């Protein structure tokens, strides 16, 4: 297992380099530069001389291959460069926004798991019932509802009309401000988890070993706990891992709506402003997060199911 983990960690290096190359090529060919973005609202007249100096200062007037070589050399030294906009190290810029992103992602996934997995179980235990049909309608709705619209709905209901929760902002980073954005973000993975759990449990319920366990006189509770749950968890966990990684990237709409200071809104702002070092840094951070989470999920799966062996 240890060698497998080490191997997986080493595999992240070429993946990250490939992602870095892809982002670099993309932003080399799309039009617009940081300097031109500073005057995009027509409000602050941009000085031609300042633009020229900026391009020189940020190395944007170097040939593409020189810029890429410099970037790779920096990456090798774990240096993500400096933000064009704030002129701070990219690592610091990302660090400041990483914790709120993790908070939101964890909270959203926790909501999705705590509600979605039991919902999927219950639906599977009573197939064709009202509970089953209701939970699947909820699941489909969750996957279909736009996060922006859902977020606004939550704001109107829980903040404006009921006055239970604040409608926006990070506040003191506590639970009250986290609930609404976490629910808005978590509904979609909740729906997917409910459906996945239901399908996994239904599949396992008809397996021979479950029939054998029942015929041996095992109680239903024990069958659910020892056989159904444990075997379904491998599939569910894999889905959790995939969702977890993508949630941090999907959070941008929710972050912008709720003024939540996460990586997603930073990424979108930086793309609009062509703050390329920050864009590269954010994407690399998200990809790294995705890879690490999935590695953890794979390890957990191996722990839950001893039949899984990684070599």
């Amino acid at each position, binding site marked *: 297992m240890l060698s497998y983990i080490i191997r997986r960690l080493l595999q992240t290096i070429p993946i990250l380099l490939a992602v870095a190359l892809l982002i670099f090529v993309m932003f080399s060919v799309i039009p617009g530069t940081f300097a031109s973005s500073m005057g995009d*609202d027509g409000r602050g007249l*941009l*000085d031609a001389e300042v633009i020229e100096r900026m391009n020189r200062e940020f190395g944007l007037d170097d040939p593409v291959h020189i810029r890429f070589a410099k970037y790779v050399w920096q990456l090798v030294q774990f240096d993500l460069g400096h933000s064009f*906009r704030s002129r701070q190290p990219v690592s610091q810029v990302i660090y400041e926004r990483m914790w709120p992103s993790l908070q939101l992602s964890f909270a959203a996934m926790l909501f999705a798991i705590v509600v979605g997995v039991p919902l999927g179980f219950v639906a599977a235990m009573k197939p064709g019932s009202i509970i089953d049909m209701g939970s699947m309608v909820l699941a489909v709705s969750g996957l279909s509802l736009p996060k922006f619209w859902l977020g606004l709905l939550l704001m109107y209901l829980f903040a404006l009309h009921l006055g239970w929760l604040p409608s926006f902002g990070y506040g003191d980073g506590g639970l009250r401000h986290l609930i609404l954005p976490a629910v808005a973000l978590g509904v979609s993975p909740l729906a997917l988890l409910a459906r996945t759990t239901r399908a996994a449990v239904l599949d396992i319920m008809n397996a021979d070993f479950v029939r054998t366990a029942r015929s041996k006189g095992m109680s239903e509770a024990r069958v659910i706990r020892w056989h159904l749950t444990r075997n379904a968890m491998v599939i569910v966990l894999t889905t959790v891992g995939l969702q977890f990684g993508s949630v941090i990237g999907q959070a941008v709409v929710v972050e912008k709506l709720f003024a939540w200071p996460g990586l997603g*809104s930073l990424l979108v702002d930086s793309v609009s402003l062509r703050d390329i070092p920050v864009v590269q840094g954010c994407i690399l951070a998200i990809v790294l997060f995705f890879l690490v989470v999935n590695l953890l999920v794979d390890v957990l799966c191996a722990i839950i199911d001893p039949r899984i062996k990684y070599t």
Partner: protein
Amino acid sequence: MIRKLTLAAAMSLAAFAVAAQEPRQGGTLRFTAPYGSSFASLDVHSTNRIQDDIWSKALHRTLYNWDSAANEPVPELIEEVTVADDGVTYTMKLRQDAYFHHGRQMTADDVIFTFTRIMDGAQAYPPARHVRLIEGAVAVERGEAEEISGLRKIDDFTIEMVLVDRLDPGFSFYHGNTSIYPADMAEIPNFDTAPVGLGPYRFVEYIPGSRLVGERWEQFYKEGKPYTDRIEILIMGEAAARDVAFRNGEIDVSVLGPVQYVAYQNEAALADNLLEVAEIFTRNMGMNPNFEPFSDPRVRQAINHAINSDLIIERLVRNKAFRATSWLPIGSPAYDDDLEPYAFDQDRARELLAEAGYPDGFSFEWTATANESWGIAIVEAVLPMLAQVGIEVNIVPVEGAVLSEVVRAGDFQAYIWSNTSGPDPLQTLKCYHSSTPQSACNYVQYNNPEFDALLDAAGATADTDERIDLLKQANRMLYDDAVVWFFNYNKAVMAYQPWVHGIQPNATELAIQYYEDIWIDETSPAAN
């Protein structure tokens, strides 16, 4: 001289009448920064975005402020200004009661340090374009000198500033990104994350992407101000979210978009607390003279006649704009009240096109962004109007950053944009001087020797009335030549809670307020 009330000031009279109550001390002002989901950085010299001006007015001060009532820059950190007969040498006596948040008194050294810092060419600070007004600044920028020769310390509280041209320095040095920094900033720990300034509030905390908080600076030089104990500047780029938060009483002000403007006007409780200001931004369609049809002023005039601008303003922009007559907006001192906008007259448009040699019309590409007030939606509304006079349009959709680039490079046939058109009418109209490159702001490469002569004369005269008259003539010339399709001037609308008093009708940008003049009464949820 009797100053004409701007439309903005007239609209705000009611607000001021209410604000005649005695200001109350205390509470927290919860202001919003609506132009994005972050600030660029806490070094205000490194940015030129309005979003950063919003927070800088809380923590910092500039040599001049913008007086919204008089609609002109006024000395702020300067106690007294005298101008020599040459019209370019300014002697500025600084106020002696201005203290930085770390306790040190402001002196001439701080002003000289600040402007020299801004001119560090290696940093490419955007406000360099303002400081270039001072003689010798360019040499510092190019690394040819270490000091700005035109900026001299007379004594600890007096500086002499020699300008390169007869321009009012107030129009340059009221911008937030020319804020005066302490000369000893390198010795102040964590200055880049906890800035020290001269503003009415001292820094408390900054959560990137969320908010900046300041607390009253007890040594602020305006006695009794600021009124509130704290200020929270909340970063809220989404209009829908601001709407909910405002209705919920969680924020004290909200800049409205067209959709919210209509909604708020129709609700009695909200309609009473709207401040509307004609800002200094002109929405326009620029036409590239290198594209043959647009080289003929008759074609440009025809386009102005062919488009029913009033209808578009009413239906699409929801009356959140004023019809443009020429380039200079309503709040400009050189705005011409007598100038009528181009009439919607498609017959006249067809006549002009025929005269210009396009009786069957022509087609062109129109570059536009997704902006709801001056973007693709507007272009799509114009398409059928131009089609009725035989002009076919192909839309080229682009991002904001790309629009700026293609326009400056001249890589367009036509574009639609919102461009700053003030506050200094001379500086504004210089964009159309033939010596101004396209990459600067002469995007349509206007070249008219008579226009140039008017501007040169306006710049040379010290007589304010004569200058204004010359600028009005120049503005009229832009109208006659139809340099652009004159669409509208932005109407900025800010909703404010009934417990908020002292909001200023700032025509340069309504979201920029001088917070020391704002107070909240006891009905605010954040009154204590």
